[in-house]
């Protein structure tokens, strides 16, 4: 912080998206590259607070004020070191994180927070451009072997951390390519897959092994896995979607969002052209009001849906903060993403009560308007039910814990009442990421991946040194 008054003089500015009409025509990143000069300017707004609420708000506890300071003064490489010190994959969070750090920023109290995410993205992009992101090969091998099951952000993080400690890590992935939801859930227009690939290259160069297309329990005996490894990390995600048990749920065209998104990703990447579900020419209703529904919205628009509606049953979120009421916590605010500028319509306060259809195919969603005027803002019906026409209904109403997986049974891992698994899942078996905590942010998954790596490392150290190869 070279100028303590900078926040008074500089307004918040973020790099623009590409024009909506242009980006609707492709699947490439909606954003543009952050100009380093802009990042430096914006980093100056950081006040280097005595209590860094941003760091507290970040699940990774990124040392935000420190790298803001380094960027501001042009020390890019040291900023990258500071960033990587707490975050293995800043490009993923830089692209995808909803940035609770920015909500916690002290500047958010009275005006616009520091563009923390944008600075982060600028640092890591600069790092890749300059060739500063290199494999960090461990000084020696411990001879210990670790299996990481699942290659989403939690699994990749755990694998990278453990590899760098000198353990031999193998990542098992049942899909064709590693990345988990990063690859198969997140659309390309938010995260181009090349960003994942260049990380995987680094990981492979560091010594992490990847076994893809291997579904443990089906393709590989868990007992074998256990015998071959000193520790197992389960990072299998929480992909069981929440059900909407309404009349007509069985109609064709009522689909879980993730199925749609996975299909779209496989189509875009060419892994499986065509995809499972198409929105082309259809009237699409997405039930839900979060990140997943927004991803569906963007895909549906790109596919050429004839109309897209995002329908949420909750109250219309406020557009402005109430100072100090929620801060520095995450406030329930109306959040708009790039896709919301592109088309479609968002509605709130509509409670779905049935899916209507003909010939076994969905034709509409019956909804009741709600008003949030009861005691403590409780919802109650505020009108007669109406039917919204639809040819495709995507359910983006959340996730409900781990899939019932034979793997867990084979490893003797019991699930918790929340439908997830315990962090200490069994002898030498550790859980990490969404499968432990439930569906959450990527940044949380990375944090958990780092935490589990610490625990595993301690566990392995306690075993003593193996006879290294």
């Amino acid at each position, binding site marked *: 912080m070279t100028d303590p008054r900078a926040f*008074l003089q500089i307004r918040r500015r973020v790099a623009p998206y590409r024009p909506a009409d242009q980006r609707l025509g492709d699947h490439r990143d909606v954003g543009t590259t952050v100009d380093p000069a802009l990042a430096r300017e914006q980093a100056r707004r950081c006040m280097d*607070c*005595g*209590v860094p*609420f941003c760091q507290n708000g970040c699940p990774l*506890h990124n040392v935000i004020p420190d790298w803001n300071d380094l960027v501001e003064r042009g020390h890019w490489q040291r900023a990258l070191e500071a960033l990587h010190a707490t975050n293995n994959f800043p490009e993923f969070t830089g692209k995808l994180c909803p940035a609770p750090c920015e909500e916690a920023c002290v*500047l958010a109290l009275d005006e616009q927070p520091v563009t923390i995410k944008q600075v982060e993205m600028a640092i890591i992009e600069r790092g890749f451009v300059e060739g500063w992101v290199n494999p960090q090969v461990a000084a020696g091998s411990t001879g210990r072997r670790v299996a990481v099951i699942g290659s989403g952000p939690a699994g990749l993080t755990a694998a990278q951390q453990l590899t760098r400690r000198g353990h031999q890590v193998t990542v098992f992935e049942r899909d064709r390519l590693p990345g988990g939801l990063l690859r198969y859930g997140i659309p390309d227009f938010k995260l181009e897959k090349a960003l994942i690939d260049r990380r995987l290259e680094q990981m492979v160069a560091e010594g992490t092994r990847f076994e893809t297309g291997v579904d443990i329990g089906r393709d590989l005996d868990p007992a074998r896995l256990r015998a071959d490894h000193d520790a197992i990390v389960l990072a299998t995600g929480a992909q069981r979607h929440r059900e909407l048990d309404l009349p007509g749920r069985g109609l064709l065209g009522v689909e879980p969002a993730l199925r749609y998104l996975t299909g779209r990703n496989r189509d875009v990447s060419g892994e499986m052209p065509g995809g499972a579900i198409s929105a082309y020419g259809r009237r699409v209703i997405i039930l839900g009001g979060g990140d997943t529904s927004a991803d569906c919205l963007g895909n549906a628009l790109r596919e050429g849906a004839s109309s897209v509606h995002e329908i949420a049953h909750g109250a219309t979120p406020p557009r402005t903060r109430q100072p*100090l009421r929620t801060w520095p916590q995450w406030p329930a605010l109306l959040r708009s993403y790039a896709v919301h500028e592109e088309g479609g319509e968002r509605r709130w306060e509509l409670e779905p009560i049935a899916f209507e259809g003909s010939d076994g195919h969905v034709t509409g969603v019956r909804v009741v308007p709600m008003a949030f005027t009861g005691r403590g803002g409780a919802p109650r019906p505020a009108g007669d039910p109406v039917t919204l026409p639809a040819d495709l209904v995507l359910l983006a109403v959340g996730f409900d814990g781990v899939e019932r997986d034979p793997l867990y049974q084979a490893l003797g891992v019991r699930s918790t009442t929340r439908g997830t698994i315990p962090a200490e899942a069994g002898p030498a078996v550790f859980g990490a990421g969404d499968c432990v905590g439930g569906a959450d942010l990527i940044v949380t998954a990375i944090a958990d991946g780092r935490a589990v790596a610490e625990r595993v490392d301690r566990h392995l150290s306690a075993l003593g040194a193996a006879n290294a190869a």
Partner: protein
Amino acid sequence: MSGNHRSGLHHPGFEHDACGVGALVQLDGRSRHALVRQALTALANLDHRGATGADALTGDGAGITTQMPDRLLRAVCSAQLRCELPAPGGYAAGLVFLPRDPGLRLRCEELCIRICAEEGHRALGWRDVPVRPELIGRVASRSAPVIRQLVVERRTGDEAAFERKLYVIRRRVERAAMQAGVPEAEFTIVSLSARRLVYKGLLKATQLGEFYGDLRDPRYETALALVHSRFSTNTLGTWDLAHPFNFLAHNGEINTVRGNANWLAAREPQLRSELFGDDLQKLFPIAEPRWSDSAKLDAMVELLVLGGRSLAHALAMLIPPAWTDPTLDLDDDVRAFFEYHASLVEPWDGPAAVFATDGSRVVATLDRNGLRPARFVRTRDGLVVLASEIGVLEIEPAEIVEAGRLRPGQMLVLEPGRDRILADAEIKLELARRRPYRHWLRVNRLRLAELPAVAAAVEDAQAIARLQNAFGYTAEELRLVIGALARDGAEPVGSMGDDAAPAVLSNRTRMLPAYFRQQFAQVTNPPIDPQREALVMSLRTAVGAIGNLLEERPQDCRRIVFESPILSDEQLRRLRAPQSDGLVAATLSTLYRPRAGPDGLERTVDDLLRAASAAVWDGAQIVVLSDRGVDREHAAIPPLLAVAAVHSHLVREGARAMCGLVVESGEPRETMHLALLIGYGAAAVNPYLALASVRGLVRDGELGTLEADEAERRYLAALDRGLLKVCSKMGISTIQSYRGANLFEAIGLGPRLIERYFPGTISRLGGIELDELHRISERRHRSAFAPGGAELDAGGEYRQRHGGERHAWDAEAVSRLQRAVRDESHATFEEFAQAVDAAGRSLTLRGGLELRQGSAIPLDQVESSAEIVKRFATGAMSLGSISKEAHETLAVAMNRLGGRSNTGEGGEDPARSTRDASGDLRRSAIKQVASARFGVTADYLVDADQLQIKISQGAKPGEGGQLPGDKVDSAIAALRHATPGVGLISPPPHHDIYSIEDLAQLIHDLKSVNPAAGISVKLVSEAGVGTVAAGVAKAKAEHIVIAGHDGGTGAAPLSSLKQTGLPWEMGLAETHQVLVMNGLRGRVRLQVDGGLRTGRDVVIAAMLGAEEFAFSTAPLVAAGCVMMRVCHLNTCPVGIATQDPELRRRFTGTPEHVVRYFLFVAEQVRELMASVGVATMDELVGRCDLLRAAGRRGGLDLGALIAPALGPDGSARRHCERQDHGLEKAVDHRLIAAAEPALSGRERVVTRCRVANTDRSVGAMLGGAIARRAGALAEGGVTVLAEGIGGQSFGAFIPSGLSLHLTGWCNDYAGKGLSGGTLVVRPPDDAGLPAERSVVVGNTVLYGATGGRAFLRGQAGERFCVRNSGAAAVVEGVGDHGCEYMTGGVVAVLGETGRNFAAGMSGGIAFVLDDDGSFHSRCNLAMVDVEPITEHEDVALLASLLEQHVELTASSIAASLLSERAALAERFRIVIPHDLRRVGVRPPAAVLERVA
């Protein structure tokens, strides 16, 4: 106080005293009894400078020294002892305090007689001294000894040899009695000499003459007398502590005494004396450790004088002037005299006025700071009266032929028979010409800068990061501390206090220095301003062997001299390079193998000690302790441990004085580290890794375009400045006196570690031992050499970081509290409080205390929240440090609750005392009086429920403050009587509180102005604060605040935030314990301040003794503070600590938020009270029996914290008595009665009165009455014509419409806080000397004046117009530091000026007569220009001032100046502050209007 009272946190060594002192000398040599009577009268007139304890009839001590009253003794010995005395000089006599137990007494008497005989002389017998015990108080009687006089006949040798033997006899008797277990308080040889005799006791000044019959006997004759009236901080005083001692009596404090005593002990083995011969051994130790500072100085003087030096010589070498200051006008030989003696002894510095007599003459000296007053008059018939005040003896003005004062660093000799006063220059020149000191220095002294250069080794930049880790550097430290020091050349500044864990509770590995806290001066000894008064300070360092005190040999000054104790690598190389004619240096490695375990560390330290001894006995005069070479296998012994261990070991071995210790270490990097190494004995330190780090920062581009050399230079300069500040906080002027003085308190170090390696260090709660220290080092070392060890730890000490040092105010705590008060959610508050209390277990001392759950009572039986909140106050935060919005929010909230808010140091808008439409009052009930006296006017004072004297502030005790110019907008400038945009300085000390009796005087002043307000004194927790508080209670304060070190602040240097002051728990418990012990607890209400957050904090504070509770940070957080810690930058983003209008708009706090917070806390207090079964707060106070220590954290033992307060039977445990201020005796009552027509009827009143020096604060009460009743009285409304001697604070705070004219002379603090009134002082026309040659007013005149006029015909003392912000004054000469820190007003000096004029002056202007053109050399030009007067308006202003001066004082000087009006512009210089010129305003128009 006797040692058996040691309990809880109190330690007898903490006690202080200060006093009134006087000397009367008949210069013509006539010996007469009248002089004794006059001396006793003078003493009685100094009574107000002494004090009484819990018992009003027991004084703190009074005494007198005279020449041997031969006539009286001859007669009484003949009558009572049946013996004829030999001729004068052939016998000695002395008072002896003997035990009351007859058996014990007999043994003591026999001891005296036996030892006299053994030493070759004969005790003639014991004479009962006639006394009147019925006159004295209960406490004094209880401890009264049997008082007898011992008479000894000289059997051999000459008179000088006899005196030496008497000294030996006395020391032997003292030692023998002590070994026999006789308490010193019961058996004391008051004096034993053939030349002088001392009478003293635990008496009031007025009782001395009545008590001792001898003193009333007309046969008691003397030509000189020394008298003393004592004010001590404790009440359980003992008879032996009264002054005078054998040689001296003193007013003030020997600040440096810890170091002085340590060095005296260290050099005893090297002492040799031909005069004493083998007797020398019998004197050891020269000073007993438990003696008071005065007693130790007395012992030192006695040793030097009986060792062959003259009394003047002894005092000159012990209390030298600031001879290193090149601007001090000293003869070269005199300078050489002081430099030579600096190689023998470090200064024994004050603040002190020391009066001493050897029976033949009185020598009086003032330390270099000149903070104690010493005024003298000489009469036509040869009597000189020298005393702390003028007017102690009534003398006809016509008889007075000389009226002067003792100046800083100067000395006077009054010798019966010499017929004139010997002045300083003459005395010192005579001393300087005794030996060829200048030649000796030229031949022997080596200057480091002149030693040959040595080439450097190549630096391995790669290794630096790992070393930094090994020595515990953090990234934060590198950036925020080291980087800032190197970039700015000054210490970095922070704000909002220290809420991080203390080292002993930290979950991280903290360095050994983090366990120490700097001690600081409060009340009893003023801190120094190291920036504005730099001329008295010095970092000059010398290494080599220390010479023999009792001889004068040329080779004793063979030492290497350099200007700072912090050495660059190059300087260290020069220092230790072998040279043919140099001193021999030995380098000892302080590395150890961490793998060898804790025993390995201990063994290595033992080896190091042996090696150090060997090196010294082999002739090394410089021992370098070096930790160069840290690698995977070798860690450094913490350098502080190494140096303290070697230092104390060499002291024990008797070898310490033979060498200088130098530390070469990678660890020290900030001021505190260096201060510690030096404070534990190092002469010099080379912080090699810190310097390498600075170069590293330059290489990394962290310091912009700064070159490495320049960065290193700035870094070293910043550390120099830091060291000066550390010294100045203790009121110590030279690093030489600081070295080895051990002025620290440890928190969390265990007893074995302390006793073994840090002897004498206070560590009251126990803590870690050597094994844990090893583990800490080992852990750090291991991680430094592990893979990844090149990455520095983030830190988080100053700005919180996840995983770094924990802080009480973290994001969760801040946001929970804010949500609780905004959502009105008690549940959220509970969450907040639970989390904060739980975190407190590892953050605060109180976290280690638990409430004893016992007989709970129902909640509804507990006192209501509405009552409890009345005990709450918000802390002192000035409008200026925080915004108007925030300030008024707090005030409104506290007024709604019935609690109290505090103005802070910045004045207050009177409009806030009127209720607004909604019935809210924005007035602060507590009005603070701090060192800068901003806005402290009579109106301000009368509009207060409580007046709080801020002695120190938790965040930066012992330091001043600074409000940056950009925070001084027009509103704030108006309140503070300053100029917008001009920075404002608060001086480190109150310039009217240099000592405890001065505090009593300020309390008296304030009470006089506003008798209805309670007077509060704010202190900061440190070892000994309880004793200071006892003194404060005796000084008549009604309320005492004990602030913790963790207090928030708008701005303070980081090192002060972190490393000075103690947790309030310790200070509060100690204060409560000491007040109860002294029977003073009932007189004061105790308030605690510092980081209170929850109800649990309040309850624990109450149990430890607090009745009231001040909160600052928490209510600010409730109002929206997010702990940005940018208060000092004016960029507070929530509109609290800023004056920026844009940011102030962002303030969202409301009084409701604050009210809710306090009610939440109070409700929690009630719940806790119910759980421990106590229904009212009154009953809760001091109930430490309801607390228990919960487990040992870090080895801490909190037992002393909750030790029961033991006092005399029936002594109060909480506030329940009233202080007797004696206001009814004030002259002002008559003046107010006389002024009634003016007060009620707006008639003009002129009244007359006679005053004496014992009439203090004359005019203050009348002024208060005018301010309260009449508002603005018209000019000339009330005129008081006084005659006589003005006591202290004459005309303090007098408002507009009141004119006070004194014909006579006046003491210190005249016109203090002048608030619009007119003050005129002129000597009587019939005085025996010209007015302009007499010192007409004392020191610190017009301090903090905000307006009005003063015309003083004659000279003023030191610090004239210090902190004047609006008064116009004319004076005919001033002492040193004139117009210091002035921010407004105009001053004309028509005569001589002392040094350092205009230091820190940022506003107002001064005209100074400069006929010889030398004024600029005495002016401090850092902030002002001195120029010829060119503006016509300025000449007109000066002329107008002179005309008024002539009119009001008949000044002949002013008249003669005016007679050549055209020459005025030529003869005067104008002093204009740069700041004033920069903002383009001059001088404040309002002042000029009033003056013109």
